[in-house]
């Protein structure tokens, strides 16, 4: 079981995840790849083998009004192949998560076409790096637009229309407001793509439609044989949200929302979840059928949260710590 984190390494704040300069300064994918090479060096030293890359790696590459940025992936073929070789040497599981603006089931053809371009660029980067099939591009079903059923069907059609190379990298994630696990499974079955189970989203949407462990197992079963599934894990933020009101006013505190991620992972909730999964597997089937899966941590403290969770597992659930890959930090 690998643990991963998202984009920005907080233990090394000086490391950039991508070329974030504005279009006026001609940012480029090869500059992002140089930054990514530096991040990979950190991942190696920290013993982290799962990482979600920034979806802005190729700046403005899918911007409809900036054709000058469109060919970055092709222009960077040599550098992508080189860095991909490094990633494979390090045993890295890499992925992307499309941004919220990527709405593949939009009834507006321009929005849907832009979403398809976004996904195609991300998949092409993974292809250019020569990454295996467990390196995926995650997206959501999209909006409901007054008819969830029509929206789901539109999502299936949009996925069907993607280039095969893009479709083969795509996975659908259950969301926290509109489409739960049942919906994601419905789309995935028809589109022939896997589902990444997001545990916090499940607790917020669709929990009354399917049992948690059943949902986990159903999602894991959507992944092709030989490709290790992954899930997303986070725990909700419970602290006040404190907003600065300027120098002359007291900060304003307001209640959090459960969809916000906590800084660190609640280790006890994490342990209970994995133990319940293993227990259910043992009780239901002989031999057990729960496949090994990786876990992307969506915590605000990112790699610091990952490191803390490793320590917590070693202390509070050694049998789970024994399943971690790599087994020891170099």
């Amino acid at each position, binding site marked *: 079981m690998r643990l991963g984190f998202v984009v920005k390494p907080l*233990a*090394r704040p*000086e*490391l*950039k995840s991508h*070329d974030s*300069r504005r279009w*006026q*300064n*001609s940012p*480029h994918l*090869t*500059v992002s*790849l*140089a*930054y*990514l*090479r*530096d991040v990979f*060096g*950190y991942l190696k*030293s920290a013993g982290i083998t799962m990482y979600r890359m920034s979806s802005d790696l190729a700046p403005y590459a899918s911007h409809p009004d900036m054709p000058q940025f469109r060919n970055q992936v092709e222009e960077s073929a*040599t*550098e992508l192949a*080189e860095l991909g070789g490094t990633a494979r040497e390090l045993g890295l599981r890499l992925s992307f998560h499309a941004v919220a603006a990527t709405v593949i089931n939009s009834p507006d053809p321009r929005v849907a076409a832009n979403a398809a371009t976004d996904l195609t660029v991300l998949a092409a980067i993974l292809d250019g790096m020569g990454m295996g099939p467990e390196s995926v591009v995650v997206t959501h079903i999209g909006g409901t637009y007054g008819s969830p059923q029509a929206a789901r069907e539109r999502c299936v059609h949009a996925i069907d229309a993607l280039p095969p190379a893009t479709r083969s990298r795509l996975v659908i994630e259950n969301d926290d407001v509109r489409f739960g696990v049942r919906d994601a499974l419905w789309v995935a079955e028809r589109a022939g793509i896997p589902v990444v189970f997001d545990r916090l989203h499940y607790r917020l949407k669709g929990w009354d439609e399917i049992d948690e462990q059943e949902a986990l197992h159903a999602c894991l079963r959507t992944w092709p044989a030989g490709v290790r599934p992954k899930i997303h894990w986070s725990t909700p933020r419970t602290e006040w949200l404190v907003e600065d009101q300027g120098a002359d006013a007291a900060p304003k505190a307001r209640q959090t929302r459960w969809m916000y991620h906590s800084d660190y992972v609640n280790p006890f909730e994490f342990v209970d979840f994995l133990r319940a999964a293993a227990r259910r597997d043992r009780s239901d089937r002989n031999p057990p059928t729960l496949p090994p899966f990786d876990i992307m941590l969506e915590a605000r403290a990112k790699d610091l949260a990952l490191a803390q969770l490793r320590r917590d597992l070693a202390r509070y659930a050694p049998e789970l710590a024994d399943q971690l890959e790599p087994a020891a930090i170099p």
Partner: protein
Amino acid sequence: MTETPFDAPADAPALVAVLNDPDDLLRAQREGWYRIPLLHAPRRIGADFLALYQTAAFPPAERWAVRWVAAVRGYRLTTRRELIPEQADHPRAGDRYYRVDIGALWPLPRPIPSRRLRRITFIRTTLGRLLEAEEINDLWVQTTARERLWEAIQQAGMTDAVEREYPLLDDSPQAADFAVFDGGERLAVFVADAARDLDGCVRERAALDYPLARGGWRAVFVDPSEAGWIEGSLRAMRALRLNSPNT
């Protein structure tokens, strides 16, 4: 419209690279690129800006200083043969290089000299530091612990005897976090941090034995998690100077 380098955020990452050959400065100015051999590339190469440190190969008025900065436009992997076709028979013609594509070179408002006329490889810094540095040692952006020790060294008035990130040997990539000089005496100070804890330092010690011994260094490893580590480090640095036969 492209912004000048000086309009960019102060924390924009910058890489200071070495110019050992005036031809490389001409290539940077006329053709817009700088080369880094893949085999000897630093651990971190990503940067929004590239600045150039000129060595003894340049006229006296230009050498041992950082004078130029340019925006980075891209990193290309290529061979020396493709970079410099007129030297196609060079023994390293087939070696792989990063070609760092850069925009126009801009002169720094205030060149950054090296007081000790020292050799460097690469320096990770920021645009803000390039614009504010008075001496090359001001360029290093390091962990908070090392920054705190450098500030303490400055406050103690010891900067004339201390260098940061100093190579233990001319041909060795291993560097002391701080190097203290007095006459013929040399002290290498290594500071543990989050990325390299004290155990890591001690493990590295085995690899450092040879360059330390050959370069005539004494070594001190300090742990910022211990109370009084800054004072202890300064004491070790002062002791070197007190014990020096030249003092």
